[in-house]
């Protein structure tokens, strides 16, 4: 039930909230508008709001200069691939911890979380050297392995919090009926676990897509993801804003849309179920 407040108060709060929200959103709005401007218009002394000469040429130029398609493909392979491998390893582990917990389960979970606390930079040099010697530097599969490892603790934690909410009684009942373990998993557990698995998948694709430490340090030309693609736009300036915006828009649009759809699940996922 909504609280009742005087309309004037409500208008005031609404106006204030919208102003703050639009200020926070303004960099994204700037990208959205500048991407369709000509370079001359983008750096004009008197900035325009809407593009005066609407153009799509920036997108073509960005593709020609830095090959967006290749980088986007790498991003998709790495983020989706690492998430799927993470789920394959993580689902059995989370299942075991949620349905057959022992005294040590909590410690194991905390230990897994603690591996996330290790700063990436603490292992950057050995990983770099191992990758160099195994010829994994600048490869998509090498990057996928690292991405799997850094997101595995989050995947397991998220799955664990979802699985824990599945009532054990149902599993017991199916066990009573003499269901084999495999049947128990396929017919009982999976349908109840799918929503949790789906939001785990979504959130981890987002995290992997935006990861910008390993993707930048371990790749150069071939296996570069979109974070590397966009970093290649960091040096030249001047007649460049519209193309930078087009590149930025191409890099963030897919994940922004995914994020909007999944924002309800996001809180719970990112806080490991502690805030719902």
């Amino acid at each position, binding site marked *: 039930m909504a609280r009742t*407040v005087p309309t004037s108060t*409500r208008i005031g*709060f*609404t106006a204030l*909230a919208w102003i*703050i929200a*639009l200020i*926070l*959103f303004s960099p*994204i709005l*700037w*990208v959205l508008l500048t991407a369709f401007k000509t370079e001359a218009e*983008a*750096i004009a002394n008197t900035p325009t709001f809407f593009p005066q000469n609407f153009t799509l040429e920036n997108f073509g130029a960005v593709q020609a200069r830095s090959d967006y398609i290749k980088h986007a493909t790498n991003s998709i392979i790495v983020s989706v691939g690492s998430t799927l491998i993470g789920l394959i*390893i993580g689902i059995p*582990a989370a299942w*075991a*911890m949620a349905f*057959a917990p*022992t005294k040590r389960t909590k410690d194991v979970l*905390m230990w897994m979380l*603690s*591996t996330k*606390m*290790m*700063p*990436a*930079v*603490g*292992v*950057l*040099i*050995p*990983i*770099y050297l191992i990758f160099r010697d195994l010829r994994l530097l600048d490869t998509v599969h090498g990057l996928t392995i690292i991405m799997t*490892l850094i997101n*595995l603790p989050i995947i*397991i934690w998220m799955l664990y919090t979802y699985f824990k909410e599945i009532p054990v009684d149902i599993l017991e009942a199916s066990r009573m009926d003499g269901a084999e373990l495999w049947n128990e998993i396929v017919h009982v557990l999976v349908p109840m676990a799918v929503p949790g698995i789906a939001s785990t998948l979504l959130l981890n694709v987002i995290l992997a897509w*935006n990861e*910008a430490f390993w993707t*930048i*340090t371990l790749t150069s030309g071939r296996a570069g993801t979109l*974070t590397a693609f*966009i*970093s290649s736009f*960091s040096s030249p*300036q001047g007649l*460049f*804003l519209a193309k*930078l915006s087009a590149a930025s828009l191409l890099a963030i649009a897919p*994940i*922004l849309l*995914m*994020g909007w759809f999944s*924002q309800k699940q996001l*809180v719970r996922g*990112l*806080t490991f179920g*502690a*805030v719902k």
Partner: protein
Amino acid sequence: MATAQTRTLSRVMMAPAVLVLLIWMIVPLVMTLWFSFQNYSLINPMMTGFAGWANYLYVIGDPSFTQSLVNTLILVGGVLAITVIGGTLLALLLDQPIWGQGILRIIVISPFFVMPPVAALIWKNGFMHPGYGMLGHLWKFFGLQPVDWFNQYPLFSVIVIVAWQWLPFATLILLTALQSLSEEQREAAEMDGANAVNRFRYIILPHMARAITIVILIQTIFLLGIFAEIRVTTGGGPGYASTNLTFLVFRTGILSNDIGAGSAGGVVAVILANIVAIFLMRAVGKNLDA
């Protein structure tokens, strides 16, 4: 009720995850430790052998280390202060009966989905550039001299960018926590004549304590590793003005090819992160049980 069979089974199911994470945690860390006591430079292959504490003395003794350490603390502390205080205020505002709440939520969370290098480049070129950035235009509009943000206030500029990315995260989580506060409780407090400040202090804040702890914990994990924002904007400079520990190790180990010294820096970063982590895990452990 857990039989020996299910216990074995659950061990088998956990084995791959535990094994993979164990290797991931131990092998590179041991290697970093090992390298940190070696003379090992990719530029000068003649220099080999046990180095003792030389790498540590070299790294810690260098003024760039102290500066990077201070920068790391300012960066993490600054962003935490802005996002937790700002996020609380914004969450309180969004929790009011306002029009368009659903759309506002989506607008406010958006920056969180922008990948770090994009966020940094938008701010650098579109907003903070003294010539054609939007802030420059705004300053000129008010008759002021545009500021060259990244040269004059490099660390502050990085803080602004990172805070912009994480404020939505804090807001969304605190708002979710706020909305789970029961209406009856608030009304009861209102009936009892508690004013807004007291309601916030004695009802809302205690209720949000757990969410705030979690926001601080998760953000600290990510903020200690800030990298891309520095890489594409200042490159750690001018000098070492915006270099944090993460970036210092990258500079020493990868850019200057000094594996030994870079590893020593990495070990120091791990130790610091663990000190922070112990405090945070303790706080979270307490909060999670409650």
